[in-house]
């Protein structure tokens, strides 16, 4: 039974609407034609043997999120035709929960690798506790035909040059020209969503922090807000403002590192060194502020674990960082060799971005004006002025420019937070209600992040679904690589700024 009480803040209220499997396609079509967008679909087992699907969608503008509930009795029709971005979610449901979708154009395995031996779908309650998947390392390579097998294949990975995350990329190329590109992810799939099961709400915050290391705050924040929505508790003002501060500190070091890494791919060595040095300074500020370079071990259900005292020193440090950054940004924007490599590289069409579910700076660089902080405010964002940077070119330069504008906006926002920081307790008691569910979200440095949590009758977590922004953006990325060239690939990938851990979970 779902408990929905009037939420204290607008936007957090959601009431799952029950739909028949047959009515799904029409409902999705209607939603999309009215300007909405599907966000995700996941499956869970309320009881052993009974599977339930949840569809989450966003309506236009600032309307609350739409949640549909569906109880299938066997394979149900795929919604890929209506909303192409759901293709990966449906494949994940098939892999991990065992439900088939009919009419899916690419019904191959996604999360579990080809040939991996699994006794049952992992989320099936009957999955034996100590059973581990056995990999077969069979790869099915798509057939790219030429006259004589002319097209050459470059399988790159999963162990890649330099210190990088593990993922495999398949290039079908002739010399410099890439005909077709396919990333093969989920080598890093740890099954984190299932690790939540059975834990207490408070105890699982540290787990949420470690789903994606450079998105610790965003994940922990979305998780905490999901639990707080389910438990219907109110977070005190100081904690909310400090949460904004932490989220923006995370955005800052991520974006600064992104600029340094982008310079690495355009081989601007001093620019790379400078960007990474600024990111290091931001991380050291994190350590001074919270004791953790990744801002971990601070967030908890109902507020923060302990108080922070940023006033009196953080303002000056942020200002110094902002000045150093402003000089750096000005130099970057006047370096022709750097800009030459970014302009018109990896253009992402707005329609493709929308259809494939691109999110975050990638989305905003293609003209789609969406930001959770402004459209569905959480923490203290509703009381702060949020500037959203949007560009329309959709190329690598636009993505970099969006992030550069966000750095400036973040620092300004943080200064405002430090100015307005109220005095209040930093934690309020949160009692988890049995059999409740909640949806939480946050705008991570890479885009929209959702956590959907379900509690069982003992008040422990029974299902947590994580929709990470990298999962969405990796799906859109290949469409900017087909028919481009090899030299631009690294620059394009760096301009997206994605993590693999967030996608693979």
């Amino acid at each position, binding site marked *: 039974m779902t408990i929905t009480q009037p939420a204290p803040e607008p936007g957090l209220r959601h009431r799952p609407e029950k739909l028949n499997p047959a009515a799904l396609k029409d409902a999705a079509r209607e939603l999309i034609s009215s300007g909405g967008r599907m966000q995700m679909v996941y499956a869970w087992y309320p009881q052993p043997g009974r599977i339930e699907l949840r569809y989450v969608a966003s309506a236009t503008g600032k309307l609350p999120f739409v949640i549909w509930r569906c109880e299938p009795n066997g394979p149900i029709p795929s919604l890929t035709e209506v909303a192409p971005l759901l293709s990966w979610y449906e494949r994940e449901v098939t892999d991990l929960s065992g439900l088939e979708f009919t009419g899916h154009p690419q019904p191959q395995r996604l999360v579990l690798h080809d040939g991996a031996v699994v006794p049952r779908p992992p989320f099936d309650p009957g999955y034996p506790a100590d059973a581990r998947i056995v990999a077969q390392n069979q790869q099915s390579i798509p057939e790219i035909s030429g006259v004589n097998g002319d097209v050459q294949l470059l399988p790159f990975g999963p162990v890649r040059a330099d210190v990088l995350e*593990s993922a495999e990329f398949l290039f079908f190329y002739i*010399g410099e020209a890439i005909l077709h590109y396919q990333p093969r992810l989920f080598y890093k799939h740890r099954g984190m969503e299932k690790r939540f099961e059975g834990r207490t709400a408070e105890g699982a915050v540290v787990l949420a922090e470690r789903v994606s290391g450079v998105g610790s705050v965003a994940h922990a924040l979305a998780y905490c807000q999901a639990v707080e929505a389910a438990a219907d508790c109110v977070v005190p003002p100081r904690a909310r403002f400090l949460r904004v501060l932490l989220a923006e500190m995370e955005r800052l070091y991520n974006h600064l590192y992104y600029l340094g890494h982008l310079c690495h791919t355009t081989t601007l060595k001093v620019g790379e060194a400078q960007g990474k040095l600024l990111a290091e300074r931001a991380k050291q500020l994190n350590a001074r502020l919270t004791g953790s370079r990744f801002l971990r071990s601070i967030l908890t259900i109902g507020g923060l674990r302990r108080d922070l005292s940023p006033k009196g020193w953080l303002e000056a440090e942020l200002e110094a960082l902002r000045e150093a950054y402003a000089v750096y940004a000005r130099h970057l924007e006047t370096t022709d060799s750097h800009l030459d490599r970014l302009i018109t590289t990896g253009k992402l069409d707005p329609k493709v971005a929308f259809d494939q579910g691109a999110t975050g700076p990638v989305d905003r660089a293609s003209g789609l004006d969406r930001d959770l902080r402004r459209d569905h405010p959480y923490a203290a964002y509703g009381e702060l002025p949020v500037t959203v940077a949007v560009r329309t070119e959709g190329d690598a330069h636009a993505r970099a420019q969006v992030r550069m504008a966000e750095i400036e906006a973040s620092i300004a926002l943080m200064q405002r937070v430090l100015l307005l920081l109220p005095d209040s307790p930093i934690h309020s008691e949160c009692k988890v209600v049995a059999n409740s569910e909640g949806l939480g979200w946050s705008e991570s440095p890479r885009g929209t992040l959702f956590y959907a949590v379900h509690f069982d009758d003992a008040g422990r977590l029974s299902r947590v679904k994580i929709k990470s922004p990298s999962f969405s953006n990796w799906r859109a990325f290949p469409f900017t690589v087909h028919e481009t060239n090899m030299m631009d690939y690294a620059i394009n990938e760096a301009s997206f700024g994605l993590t693999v851990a967030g996608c693979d979970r």
Partner: protein
Amino acid sequence: MPNNLLLLAFLAWMAAAVLAALRQGLPLARILLALGSIAGIIAAIAALPHGTLAVVLPTRLAGDAVDFQMRPEALWLFGFGLAPAALACIFSTPKRDSEAGWLFGAAASLIGALGVFGVSHDAGFLIAWEIMSFGGAVMILSERLSSDAGRPVLFMLGLLEVGAVALLLAILLLAGASHSFAFTAYGQALAQAPALLLASVGILLVFGFGAKLGLLPFYEWFPTAYGAGSGASGALMSGVVMNAAFYGLSRGLLEWLPSQPSLSAGLGVFIIIIGVLSAILTALYAFQQEDWRGLLSFSSAENASIAVTMLGAALLFRGHGEALLASLAWVVALLHLAAHALAKGGLFLTADGVYRATNRYAIFHTDLLRRSSWIFGLGALFAAMSLAAMPPQAGFVSEWYVFQTVFQGFRLDTLAARLTMALAGAGLALTVAVAFATYVKVFGIGLLGRASAVDGAAPPSSVISVGVLGFCVLALAVGMPVWLKSLEIAVNARFGTEAAQAMHDGFLLVPLTAKFAFISPTMLVVVMPLLAIFPIVIVLISRRYAVRRVPVWYGGLAQDPERVSTTALTFSNALRTFYSFIYRPTEETERETHAVRYFVRRLTFTHEVAPIFGPYLFAPVTRLVFKIAGWLRPLQSGHLNFYLAVIGLLLAIILALTLF
């Protein structure tokens, strides 16, 4: 005795042609063709270095007696061309069901070639020339290897006919100027003829023979025509037939035309330019081919162009009074074609071996080297090395001589001549480099690689033929000092010099003087195996240490080497892009998607390079002809009264002519 052997060859080939036409006793026909070829080879060996004695043939043409005499250079080219021909004929075309037609065509080609080499009456020469072309066309058409063999053969015959018309015009002009149809009457008898006439004849001869040799713009029939036939056809057409065409050109330019300095120099420059440009273009197009036959055919055109360039150099040197250098250039052309005939024949028969093993002529990873006998691989390697001009093979010898000749250009005294030779050297260097890459591609991609889809091996017929020819290539290189002796008299007769003796000094091969440079395949063949002892010893010593072997590192996964290896297209891709102003390459990617266009089901990729003369020369000419035909169309009005009126008009005109 040599003449008897040649007669034997002729009769054997005629008998084979009759048997093939009657579709009876085809194995006997093959044996007869091979026997005839061997008789021809023995005749060549026996008659060199003097040449055969002139014989008067029993027929008379246009009231004249027809002489038959094979000069030493004709015997040289004929003999080397027959070696691959013999092997091609004995093992025949891989398409067994169309063997009869093929044997007939082969016999016709051989008989025609014999006539071209020896007949000294111009009408007889032209008849033999046409029989040769006819034989080639019959060979290709009868094989039915591709469903659309008609168009390419028609294109080939069309261009060859253009050449034949040029030849006809040239011979008519010569005959008119010298009032005789015998070739012996040409030469110095034409010393008083107007220079324009002689120059026109020279140009007509170049284009006439160039149609078969593959000079620009005539090389465009090569890939499609050769590509419709088999490797055996190619071995014949690139061997004895091409040598015959070159012999005709050489005789025409050096014997039929008088040796006036300005004429020789001018023609020499012209031929060098045409030759070098043809060589560059054909080499570049050869590199982009993905079919054995197309690639090897373009390469034949390239090698013929290089020989023609040397012929032009001989003319240029002669025009400037450097008889010794002229003879050097001429001998180099002969050496080049000899090496080419053997090696190209070997590779065409290798292509047949690939076809017999895999049922395709495409250049793709076949792994045949590992699966077939080592003799096959070694023979193919020697042939490829020779064509890529790698030491110690015969192709290296001739290429080295080519460049040594070109380097001598500084001895010429006019700026134009020196510039021409310098630019020719640069162009030839480009050609040789591209040719080297081409043969790396042919051998490396065509015979190596992993191929799980292929399980055949080269059959014994291919093993024997390729092995023999590869061995012959090496023997030609190693024994070059001996082979050069057989050209001494020919050089003396043609240029009056002792160049052939001056080209070798003991075991060394030198460009007329040992002070400039030297090579020695004879000694290399001894030294190279000795040098190999050192790495062999290292390998043996290292066996004592345990070596841990691990798979190739791809990034953590075991990759299928077949999938990730270089393909024929990607190997050639860099040059394709770099020379795109010549190739004008086109690519097309076709994506088949599901209902939602984001999900690609299949991707098909096709690519092409565009020929130069096809769209820019032949197509406009064809359009012009069609236009003219359109103007004349009213003559076919279909009305009976109109035809009667035309007939009446003609009768009136005839009446008027006779009466007035």
